[in-house]
């Protein structure tokens, strides 16, 4: 049975366990990998710096309190006003409409998929929701303006503005349903089945189990989904740019057009502004506010998900 295979192994000094050849390649590769992972860190720094520097210049010309509390946003006037309040209220109105749609629908879909649907149904419905999530926002914007406003909403409110917050908000709600549904469903699926069994054993129905056991147990994960969905809505650009109009409007009437923080950035940024002008810098000031708000919400959401995972894993 003895053969060349074994021979060569024993021929070498079995006591020497040192490296036969230096592995410089491994070190180089590891360095490259660390650099690849570092790109994301650089991106964050890039975002913060590229927003912060022009913003600081902006706030040396426009006092920060005028920016935060001013109610006039007229950057293109000769003596422009830079009060961001109308953009913030525009964002809030549209986001508010969106979450009124997205939270019940997203959560309902999640409860159905997690607690009621058969595996076969789930296998069809989940990809459909993914397709919905994959629709480009420019397409949703077109649909909001052309179909929802001009075909549906005008019939209900004949004097509705062509550009209005309502249609943008409704379609944005549809857009974030998949986000909320899939993250909430993840959270509910992570609830141990023992908890459900315990509830069924006490004679509870599926509805009671879902409402009084599963949803409370998955609550922090579900809230994380809501927060992330809201953050998505605040940061969404194309739907509002196309369907809600580009007029800053300090109003809470959803039938009127209004501008949001994102649609201001998009509109001002797509013009050919010179680098040093105050209008150019105002893009970054609004961007800073947007970044701070969404960053804050994302951090809350990530923290909630982490907390949730610690409980169930």
């Amino acid at each position, binding site marked *: 049975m003895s053969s060349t295979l074994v021979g060569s192994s024993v021929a070498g000094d079995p006591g020497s366990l040192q490296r036969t050849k230096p592995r410089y390649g491994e070190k180089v590769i590891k360095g490259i990998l660390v650099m690849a992972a570092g790109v994301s860190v650089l991106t964050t720094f890039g975002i913060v710096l590229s927003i912060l520097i022009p913003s600081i210049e902006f706030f040396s010309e426009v006092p920060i309190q005028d920016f935060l509390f001013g109610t006039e946003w007229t950057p293109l006037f000769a003596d422009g006003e830079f009060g961001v309040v109308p953009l913030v209220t525009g964002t809030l109105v549209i986001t508010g409409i969106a979450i009124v749609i997205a939270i019940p629908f997203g959560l309902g879909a999640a409860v159905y998929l997690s607690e009621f649907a058969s595996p076969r149904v789930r296998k069809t419905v989940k990809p459909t929701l993914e397709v919905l999530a994959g629709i*480009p926002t420019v397409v949703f914007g077109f649909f909001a303006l052309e179909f929802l406003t001009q075909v549906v909403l005008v019939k209900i409110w004949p004097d509705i503005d062509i550009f209005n917050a309502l249609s943008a908000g409704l379609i944005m709600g549809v857009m974030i349903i998949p986000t909320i549904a899939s993250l909430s469903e993840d959270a509910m699926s992570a609830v141990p089945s023992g908890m459900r069994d315990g509830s069924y054993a006490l004679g509870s129905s599926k509805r009671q189990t879902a409402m009084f056991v599963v949803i409370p147990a998955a609550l922090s994960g579900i809230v994380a989904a809501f927060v992330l969905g809201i953050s998505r809505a605040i940061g969404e650009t194309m739907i509002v740019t196309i369907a809600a109009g580009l007029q800053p409007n300090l109003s809470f009437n959803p039938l009127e057009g209004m501008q949001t923080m994102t649609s201001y950035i998009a509109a001002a940024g797509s013009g050919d502004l010179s680098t040093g002008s105050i209008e150019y810098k105002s893009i970054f000031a609004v961007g800073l506010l947007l970044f701070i708000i969404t*960053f804050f919400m994302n951090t809350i959401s990530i923290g909630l998900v982490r907390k949730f995972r610690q409980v169930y894993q």
Partner: protein
Amino acid sequence: MSTDTELTDIVGGLQSKGTPVRDRIFMWALLVTLFIAISTLLVLIAYVTIKGWPRLDPKLWQNMPSIRRPENAGAQSAIMGTLWVISLTALFALPTGILAALYLEEFSHPDSKFQRFVEVNIQNLAAVPSIVYGILGLAVFARAMALGQTVITASLTLALLILPVLIISTREALRAVPRNIRDGSLALGATEWQTAWKQTLPAATPGIATGIILSLSRAIGEAAPLLLLGAVTFITFNPTGPLSGYTTLPIQIYNWTKDSREEFQILAAATIVLLLVILLLMNFTAIWIRNKTQKRW
């Protein structure tokens, strides 16, 4: 669905005290929410298809955009622009994303401070609004690096935009490869890199491919950051290289949507159909790969 009734049947003579009306209503309410979400999708697809139908002709991809003659206008420059931008985006994003995921999943110590920092950072970046990436591209690539409003500026920006999603999905695919494949390789005297490159990565290919397709399809449909990066300029030529001006399909749709003439609305709808067909094909491919390989281990 029928668990309640089955239960009462088994119990036999015990008639259910009051039918579970609330349970029925609850279930139907859930179904309706799902139905509305999905039917919105169907209405959207039907609407753009019907509206865009008259212009779903070869002129759509053979001709260039035109302001004066909408009946002959096409989206060729946008199609070619999308091809250019997405190819370069893939070129930048795929190696970076896959190598970063390999590092985080296979090499880095899971409790190290760098790892934790990078992870939180990536999760945050994944949720940063896309318009903010546009601001980054405008300030850094277009102006500070003086790349201008070109294909390469757009590609670099979109690459950074999809990187977090790409890293997260690649890591999930790597994590799904069983630990004992790695052990088997290492026990044969393979190095960590040999194990990662020759065993773990190939075994994770289907999952990684799914993630690549989905993140690239996101880049294809993305419009907001490109608004800041010069894509809105009226472009009637195909890009000639990375430093060429460009437009893309979503931006062309946006431009036509802004024009109130009905012909352009129809053209926008036709272009949306084209874009959706591309994206749905990519989506189905991804889902198909995933279903085909789901139960491998």
